[in-house]
């Protein structure tokens, strides 16, 4: 058993940390405040090789791994604990990797190099206004139109809607649409690489809207309506009616990097707590001398390290399954470790920020302190972005107890 990172991974962490501390950390509050990631930052990050990391050089990616993607996202979130830049990055790592696995050659050659260059966005759009977790009840539909498709319906609470419109090339989403009846549930969903904008032009039939969120201000979330949106069959991913199953594989990849973002932000929170302990005294003692404080800190730090193990175990396993094609492992082996990472990562991060704010006292409740920005950022993942926490619990229970005994 080897718990160490490889030399490549160590050097990459060193370089990406230096890059993030130089280019992201000084402006993260401004990004959150102005609700915009600067356009030149996308370019710099792309030059550094931080998008589409696991995508091979053939499709314009750096040819890295999920472990490297997690290292990048963790360090980005440490530099921007509001997690806006990290979320943009994690989406543009997890979902491009799935497109690489299941997209058509034409779609991959068109989309992936643009994402890697920071000119285009590629995220996920499955959620609809009435539910995110219950994909089987999703209504957006796709019908055959000659050799292509026509899509109608509305997706909601989708990250990156604004960025898709703003970036020079454009971008889009891994999306599921109904290709059968409602009664067929999740067995009648097909996956597509849906573009909202390409070659600098918004596509007909795609109408985005942006919502005002309480946190991670630098990244937009919104929705889009599809009105007779015509799509070439080259954008279909995998076989018809296999969309649910492929998307679940994608969620395993994306949730791994989501948890990496949470532990990166949480690590920053731990450092803020340590700084607070060096300065804050009550009753003639450093507050960290009180067991009410130091026991809690030790407990949170332990949980953070546990979450970190889940993250890197999941990433390592994803690399074994998808990049090394190691036949000792199966895509479903990812279910439990990924669910544990996504369950634990956001919860630990939220706990760390809440406690760190309490240790900082009233100052932390003022907008002078940046801690609330970090709390609101990671809170999005406890609320349920990229998979509700109870769905994570369900996956862990189902895959350990057995599906026959954990029925809906």
């Amino acid at each position, binding site marked *: 058993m080897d718990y160490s990172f490889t030399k*490549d991974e160590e*050097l990459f962490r060193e370089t990406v940390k230096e890059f993030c501390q130089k280019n992201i950390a000084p402006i993260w509050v401004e990004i959150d405040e102005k609700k915009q990631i600067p356009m030149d930052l996308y370019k710099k990050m792309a030059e*550094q090789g*931080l998008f589409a990391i696991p995508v091979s050089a053939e499709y314009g990616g*750096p040819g890295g791994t999920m472990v490297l993607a997690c290292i990048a996202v963790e360090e980005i979130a440490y530099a921007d604990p509001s997690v806006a830049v990290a979320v943009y990055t994690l989406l543009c790592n997890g979902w491009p990797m799935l497109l690489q696995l299941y997209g058509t050659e034409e779609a991959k050659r068109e989309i992936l190099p643009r994402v890697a260059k920071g000119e285009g966005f590629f995220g996920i759009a499955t959620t609809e206004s009435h539910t995110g977790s219950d994909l089987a009840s999703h209504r957006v539909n796709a019908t055959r139109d000659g050799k292509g498709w026509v899509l109608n319906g509305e997706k909601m609470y989708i990250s990156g809607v604004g960025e898709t419109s703003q970036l020079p090339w454009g971008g889009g989403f891994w999306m599921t649409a109904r290709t059968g009846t409602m009664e067929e549930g999740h067995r009648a969903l097909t996956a597509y690489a849906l573009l909202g904008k390409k070659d600098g032009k918004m596509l007909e039939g795609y109408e985005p809207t942006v919502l005002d969120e309480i946190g991670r201000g630098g990244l937009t979330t919104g929705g889009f309506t599809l009105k007779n949106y015509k799509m070439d069959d080259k954008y279909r991913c995998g076989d018809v009616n296999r969309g649910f199953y492929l998307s679940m594989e994608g969620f395993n990849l994306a949730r791994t990097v989501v948890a990496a973002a949470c532990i990166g932000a949480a690590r920053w929170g731990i450092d803020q707590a340590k700084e607070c302990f060096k300065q804050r005294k009550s009753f003639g003692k450093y507050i960290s001398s009180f067991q009410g404080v130091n026991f809690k800190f030790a407990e949170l730090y332990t949980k953070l390290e546990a979450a970190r193990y889940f993250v890197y175990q999941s990433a390592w396993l994803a690399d074994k399954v998808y990049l090394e094609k190691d036949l000792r492992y199966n895509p479903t082996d990812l279910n439990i470790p990924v669910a544990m990472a996504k369950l634990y990562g956001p919860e630990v991060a939220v706990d760390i920020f809440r406690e760190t704010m309490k240790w900082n006292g009233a100052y932390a409740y003022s907008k002078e302190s940046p801690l609330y920005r970090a709390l609101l950022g990671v809170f999005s993942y406890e609320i349920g972005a990229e998979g509700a926490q109870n769905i994570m619990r369900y996956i862990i229970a189902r895959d350990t107890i057995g599906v026959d005994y954990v029925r809906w």
Partner: protein
Amino acid sequence: MPDIVVCVKQSIDIEQLKFDPSTRAPILVGAPRKMGEMDRRAVEEALRIKERMGGSVIALTIGGAETEDVMRRAYAMGVDEGYLVTGPELGSLDSSTKIKVLATVIKKLPHFDLVLCGAASSDVFSWQVGPGLAELLRVPVITSAKKLDIQGDEVTVECDLEKGTYTLKAKMPAVVTTTLDINEPRIPSLMAVLGASKKKAKVLTLEEIGMAQAKPLTEVSSISMPEVKRKKVIFDGSEAEKLGEATSRLIEALRKEGVTE
């Protein structure tokens, strides 16, 4: 098209160095290490010259197993070739002997126009390597460069020395040492990091370069953290009426300590 040799060192990352509280000695085993900050500027300057004028950049380092990492970083930054002198006996060598090792390797290279190295390492901070190398290579040296230019066979260097900024010229081959001010070193991309792992430095032993008998001239008897004794004098200015008096007493105390005039 100058051929440049850059000497780099895998230094202990002083910012992360921990000390044994009982002995006050630094914990060197497993201490995080990285390329010295001034060495990074030397590599960057060499790469910028190559990008401007062509030529080649060779990175040279000596040390134990940990030096492989510094070479990996140099390759990721973009050097063409790497030479690594390694062996267990190197750990016990002092700066002057290590300079001899570096000079011996450089003399064996087919050609060089310029040797660049950090003015000082980030850990030992001896400032000896550049001048020592120039002496052994019998070439001119300019230290503490903050700007460097090459015209024909001449190198022009701007450097801060004592109380002035000097512009000095030397015929190449020459040795120039770099400071933190000379440039902002590049941060290798992921693609460069992954590419670097495919490149392997040429590994040499002391025996192979004819220095099997090398012995240190000086010996480090001990290293310990300086003891800082705090005086813990408190001038109570917590109440408004006491503030003026407390401030005067504080200024007087600082004068006595020689902190202020």
